[in-house]
């Protein structure tokens, strides 16, 4: 066999393989293509577009002029922006720890074999499923200063009436409570699934070693659901920083900007005040802040995980 014959035969052998590879590639891309296009079209392209927008004074009606970093500079002197930061920060600081602790406790309580447990579990998830509009209207009636159920209850108990959603100093706390009520069912479900994944042998071994309820909770359950805790914390941070819908349906940011959150402010800037370029700049600051918060959080969590 000559070398040319050999190479010809390998070529002959290789060619259909190449063709199949090409065919596989086409088939592969035809499956992955739509998703790729969707991701490119609906997230990356708009993100790039919004970044470009944040360097202009566009109102979305006309193209707008390039203003460089002016939008970002204006941010530093915008009192409403700082108010929105404070409001969102308050929500974050109150919501994350409470949702994790309450979520885990309720999940432990729901992890039992009692009659009607399915019903109890459903009860905790329902607020998460109900639309924000319905929740907003409902809560608007409960936390109304003059006609609300909450103040009605306080009055019956002989306690002083509160300003609630009408009070600039209380409204954000009330909204945080509502936010907590709608979202923490999600933590419960995730924790419940994680607890049910803990192997029976470990639990049995613990009880044989004489671990009580508290010890089991502290040394078996809490460490076992750690990955879920990290996931829920990250998820909660994103959720809280993007808080918008309930603001829209309960207070519209009022009274006197007491409940303006960052995303609500972005929406106002872009669509009510016709300053879309400035709104995009605020959105990008939020994006950078969220990213930073999550990266730092994950690094800390990982380091702790390594030393623990």
């Amino acid at each position: 066999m000559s070398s040319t014959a050999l190479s010809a035969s390998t070529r002959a052998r290789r060619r259909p393989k190449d063709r199949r590879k090409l065919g596989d590639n086409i088939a592969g891309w035809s499956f992955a293509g739509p998703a790729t296009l969707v991701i490119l079209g609906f997230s990356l392209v708009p993100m790039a577009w919004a970044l470009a927008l944040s360097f202009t004074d566009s109102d979305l009606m006309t193209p707008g002029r390039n203003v460089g970093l002016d939008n970002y500079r204006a941010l530093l002197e915008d009192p409403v922006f700082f108010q929105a930061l404070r409001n969102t920060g308050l929500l974050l600081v109150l919501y994350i720890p409470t949702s994790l602790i309450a979520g885990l406790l309720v999940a432990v309580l729901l992890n039992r074999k009692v009659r009607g447990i399915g019903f109890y579990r459903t009860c905790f998830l329902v607020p998460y499923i109900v639309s924000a509009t319905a929740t907003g209207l409902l809560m608007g009636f409960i936390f109304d200063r003059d006609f609300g159920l909450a103040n009605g209850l306080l009055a019956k108990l002989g306690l002083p009436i509160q300003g609630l959603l009408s009070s600039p100093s209380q409204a954000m706390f009330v909204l945080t409570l509502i936010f907590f009520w709608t979202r923490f069912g999600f933590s419960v479900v995730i924790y419940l699934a994680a607890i049910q994944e803990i192997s029976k042998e470990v639990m049995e071994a613990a009880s044989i070693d004489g671990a009580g309820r508290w010890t089991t909770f502290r040394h078996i359950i809490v460490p076992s659901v750690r990955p879920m805790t990290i996931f829920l914390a990250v998820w909660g941070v994103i959720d809280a920083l993007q808080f918008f819908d309930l603001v829209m349906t309960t207070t519209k940011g009022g009274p006197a900007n007491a409940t303006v959150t960052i995303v609500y402010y972005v929406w106002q800037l872009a669509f009510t005040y016709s300053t879309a370029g400035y709104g995009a700049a605020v959105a990008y600051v939020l994006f950078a802040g969220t990213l930073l918060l999550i990266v730092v959080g994950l690094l800390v969590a990982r380091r702790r995980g390594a030393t623990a």
Partner: protein
Amino acid sequence: MRRALAAAAVVTLVATGCGGGGDTRDEQPAGGPVEITIWHGQEDASAKSIEKLVDQFNRSHPDIRVNTESGGATADGMLPKITAALTSDAYPDIAYLYGSWAPNIARNPKTADLAEFVKDPAVQWDDFWANEREAVTIQGKVIGFPAVVDNMVVLYNKKVLAKAGVQPPKAGWTWDDFRAMAKQATNAKDGVFGTTWPISGGEEAVWGLWPMVWQAGGEILGPDNKKAVFNSAAGQQALGRLRGMAVDDKSVYLDSSPSEKGQKLFESGRLGLFLSGPWVLPDLQAAKVDYGVSPLPGTNGNHETISGPDNWVVFDHDERRVKASATFLAWLTAAQQQLVWMSDTGSLPIRESITKLPGYQDYLDKYRGIDVISANLANAKRVRPATTRYPRVSAFVAEAIAQTLLGKSDAKTALDEAVAKSDAALAVPGS
């Protein structure tokens, strides 16, 4: 076989990928009727009425075909919707847009200019009320047709007032009468308030203040819309009076919800006086409320009110479609069609000639009190400043009103602060 399948998949993918963005409605055959799309943004009875009229138009005009869509938004949410549609080139020919948005919309190059069209005597442009024409004309550019006009009046619940021993408003009443009546009608024990004022962050908190300011000789912005002047004596007096009612008399239910609970409270007999407009009348009748209607209280005999004309705005795809849109709107806003629309929805006449049609009396009989509101159109002399910055100014005023009515600030301090912020916003170059 497998390869052929894969190739076919790719071809479809590319085809859909490329075709997805374009508006196929743009490519119309040269012959046949001109197709136009209208986003009416109406709900319930109003939506049915407009669709009925469009059907009638399509039947009588074979050369034009109008497609109705809600636009996927109610009238309140149309600005964000149309903004997105214009940005992505998927906009309708006609959309229902509030008058306060007109300055923003007019800046878009895709907004049509009907200035030449409305000169046609058949359109009877001068038959529309002056403030409507003003609201749809931005720096000489006529961006569409007047759609709906309204104005602010005082609605009063006869039962609530009678129970508190308050006489209903008389002609020539003043804001001091209004304050005294609200105080007398308030009954904290039964949860009844004299009146209500919104304190959420939106325009609904603000627009009721302007008639008081205007009546006392004040203005919102100075000439050229460059400076805010609403902290004048007139402004301070207006907001100070409201503060007195809310803080000292405790006769005002401060509504912090965006759903505007005022109307529901009025319907359920918990409010004596309610500043509102004609759009609530069908609901009040459905709820069988025993109500009365009065023009706003006055200052030195001036009972000026505020109106919010809404527009049908036309967007430019090509000349044929703009012309078809204008033809349709001229027909829709003609007196005969408007009377049908008014009877269905309780809207006010947008043309003077409508009031002379034989069917007008039936309409007046159908909606109790509409005659007062209709006559009150004569008191609607000014519109809010036609500047793209008004929404921002309005937000500052809303904040000042909330601070003041909650007793956290006095009227002068709050208004001065709002003026300072507004001046900064007005001084930014552009638009």
